[in-house]
């Protein structure tokens, strides 16, 4: 018997002893408090082959985004509707509200609703991962290993997502979004969710190369009822669509040299949020 196996057997004997000497409820508790990610088995990998193939690079159907924005707006409550109306007027006047000007992640649900950039979807045992283009921090992790949401999750840009398969559909439940994260209908019109936003998604194939995300968004601070909407994505098989590295903040700098000839990033000039010639007013 080699040493790791001996150790494992010793641990099992110890665990069995501990379990036999403690009340059963106490014995189960340590495992629940500190769950592990078990190693993936051959059966886990084989199970993935039975799922619909979601893997690959997906680009949003922007024309459909625009059509949806016009035909199916969110049921804004009266107070928010005034803000939205003002933002549309500002956008039309060429003064777009800076929904995405910062280099924070666009967050959920903007990731699925309004972004123009592609994402890569990976399905692995216990996990579905979306890697967005434009910035490396556009990243969604959806746990499909059966875990529940944490009791008190830290709010984040993409929230805490758990998913399960219902036939050919991946059902995703997302909570714990930062209140500052926007519910936006385009890159210039949106409002912070202000907390308690809950998103349920049903992700499924419409045909071999088209993915649909049916979203149900509940945001009690903004909406008079749950908003149901759908976004579509086309799979790109051509390798020229492979996701490239993106670092949003890099866009605020150009390449240059310091006084010693070393390569450095040099800040570029911005005016009203856009790059302008250095001799502009």
């Amino acid at each position: 018997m080699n040493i790791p196996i001996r150790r494992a057997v010793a641990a099992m004997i110890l665990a069995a002893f501990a379990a036999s000497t403690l009340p059963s409820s106490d014995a189960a508790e340590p495992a629940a408090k500190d769950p592990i990610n078990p190693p993936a088995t051959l059966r886990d990998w084989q199970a993935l082959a039975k799922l619909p193939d979601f893997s690959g690079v997906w680009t949003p159907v922007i024309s459909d985004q625009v059509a949806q924005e016009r035909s199916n707006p969110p049921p804004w409550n009266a107070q928010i509707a005034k803000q939205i109306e003002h933002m549309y007027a500002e956008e039309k006047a060429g003064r777009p509200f800076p929904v995405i000007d910062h280099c924070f992640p666009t967050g959920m649900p903007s990731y699925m609703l309004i972004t123009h950039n592609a994402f890569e979807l990976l399905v692995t045992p216990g996990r579905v991962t979306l890697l967005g283009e434009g910035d490396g921090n556009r990243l969604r992790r959806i746990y499909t290993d059966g875990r529940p949401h944490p009791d008190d999750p830290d709010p984040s840009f993409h929230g805490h997502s758990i998913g399960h398969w219902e036939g050919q559909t991946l059902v995703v439940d997302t909570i714990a979004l930062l209140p500052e994260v926007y519910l936006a209908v385009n890159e210039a019109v949106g409002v912070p969710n202000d907390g308690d936003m809950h998103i349920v998604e049903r992700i499924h194939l419409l045909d071999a190369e088209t993915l649909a995300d049916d979203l149900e968004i509940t945001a009690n601070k903004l909406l008079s009822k749950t908003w149901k909407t759908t976004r579509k994505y086309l799979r790109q098989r051509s390798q020229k669509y492979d996701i490239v590295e993106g670092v949003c903040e890099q866009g605020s700098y150009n390449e240059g040299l310091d006084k010693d000839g070393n390569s450095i990033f040099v800040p570029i000039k911005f005016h009203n949020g856009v790059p302008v010639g250095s001799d502009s007013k």
Partner: protein
Amino acid sequence: MNLFRMKLTLGAVALAALMAAVPVFAHHSFAVYDRTKLLTLKGNVKSFQWTNPHCVVWVLVQPEGGGEPQEWSFETTSPGVLTRGGWTRNSVKPGDRVAVEFYPLRDGSHGGGLSAVTLVDTGQKLTASFGEKAELK
């Protein structure tokens, strides 16, 4: 603190203040550009900023009335989208003579949204679209 060290410290503080004043506003809606006007300017490429979320062709333009060349920014979409449209980071190079078709900024600043760039010496025209026109199927 000797004078040299003090100067160095003040310099660092000034630099930090300058850096802090640089807004990180790389990503924005293209509604800032006036899409009802398509203008053309000729000049020499200063640099081609190949960065996410948006690339920028920086061009030095000789003013009509004479004087020092003015720096203009012509912003376009991301490296990923441009690559799929046939561009590379070397599609335009410093020193290239170019004619740029662009949608101007509304406030008169020296910048615009790039629609197309023609390399004067070869006649090659590179086009780029952004916003809802950027959809590539």
